[in-house]
């Protein structure tokens, strides 16, 4: 079981290998009440049985403790570690999220085909069961790791951290994460990605961004997929875009057909630009470090 992800208890498998955590915590979910209620013998109320062994009228044995922490603090810590790993190496990371059947895997395969000659790519595939998607990706010649979440409904920062140990993505590479097909849960879990990319296909409803606003709010980019089918459908693409922007006014939208290739070059250019910017940021920090080292060496030599 992941220390963050309770819903995948003992079920998470990374490419067929059961995932055991260091703390080995097992919650058996029984409802036995084993604790003592500090009642005195014979059913008396013993106010002196608390940890303070005393009773001051009006002052309870209990006390309040401030915590002030986000419920997702643990996941956010894992995600921040992942993000630092990526940034130090100039790796550009996208987390692809959508409901099942929007064409995520096909879109990934086509994106890889457009970019693999320009950049090294590695892929993490999240699904409850099967390694079918990872096999589709491997067929393109790119390394892919399947994470099976078991009963889990989303990937979390910890799982992706383990995936990094296995995949060891190259410096300056593109790292693509296909999340579990689910428009609800993956919205809340930061994996350390630079952008969440939501995929909506035109065979779904235009109002999906309003029905599942958390996901479209969490995403920076929306790909409207299967646009080659628009002539055969009543789907109003402008309305779908307007609905998505009601939830997220800053959303970047691409209309694409992964199967037919329309719009895919604009999307691939956006990915390539993000990768270049990530590389430039890393070069800047490397240059800053080099300048700092040179300055320290100069100071040392002057002593």
């Amino acid at each position, binding site marked *: 079981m992941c220390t963050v992800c309770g819903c995948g208890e003992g079920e998470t498998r990374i490419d067929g290998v059961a995932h055991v955590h260091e703390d080995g915590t097992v919650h058996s979910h029984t409802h036995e009440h084993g604790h003592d209620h500090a009642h005195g013998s014979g059913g008396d109320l013993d106010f002196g049985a608390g940890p303070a062994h005393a009773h001051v009228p009006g002052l309870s044995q209990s006390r309040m403790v*401030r915590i002030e922490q986000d419920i997702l603090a643990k996941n956010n810590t894992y995600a921040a570690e992942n993000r630092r790993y990526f940034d130090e190496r100039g790796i550009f990371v996208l987390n692809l999220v959508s409901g099942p059947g929007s064409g995520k895997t096909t879109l990934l395969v086509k994106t890889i085909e457009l970019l693999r000659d320009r950049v090294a790519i590695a892929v993490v595939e999240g699904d409850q069961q099967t390694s079918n998607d990872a096999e589709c990706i491997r067929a393109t010649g790119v390394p892919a790791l399947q994470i099976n979440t078991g009963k889990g409904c989303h990937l979390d920062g910890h799982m992706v951290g383990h995936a990094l140990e296995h995949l060891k993505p190259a410096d300056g590479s593109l790292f693509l994460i296909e999340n579990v097909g689910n428009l609800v849960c993956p919205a809340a879990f930061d994996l350390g990605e630079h952008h969440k990319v939501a995929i909506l296909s035109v065979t779904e409803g235009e109002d999906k961004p309003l029905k599942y606003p958390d996901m479209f709010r969490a995403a920076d980019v929306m790909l409207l997929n299967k646009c080659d089918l628009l002539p055969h459908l009543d789907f109003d693409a402008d309305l779908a875009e307007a609905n998505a922007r009601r939830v997220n006014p800053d959303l970047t939208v691409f209309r694409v057909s992964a199967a037919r290739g329309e719009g895919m070059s604009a999307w691939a250019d956006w990915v390539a630009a993000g990768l270049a910017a990530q590389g430039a940021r890393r070069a800047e920090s490397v240059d800053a470090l080099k300048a700092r080292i040179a300055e320290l060496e100069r100071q040392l030599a002057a002593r």
Partner: protein
Amino acid sequence: MHEMSLAEGMLQLVEETARREQAQRVKTIVLEIGQLSSVETSALEFCFAAVAAGGLADGARLVIVDVPGAGRCLSCGRTVAMESLFGVCPDCGSHRLQATAGTEMRVREMEIE
């Protein structure tokens, strides 16, 4: 569905704090849940009762403080109340509202003994 994960995350924060404070038992946990956050409070309460069973927070009472949603209108710049992640600016009628408050899911404090 992910409320089980959130309940686990919450339990971890609560049990770590309880152990550090050498508490015998956690009586009450006060949560701040924003109106615009992605959590269903009744599901969270149900899941927390299940994951907390047998531990220091077994049977702890959850007090959930609702944090109202608010957002900034990108058209007129006003901050307005929001009841869902999308809405209409009551001042200028624009749909370009960006949520700025009410998305939190925090453990604020707890009562221990």
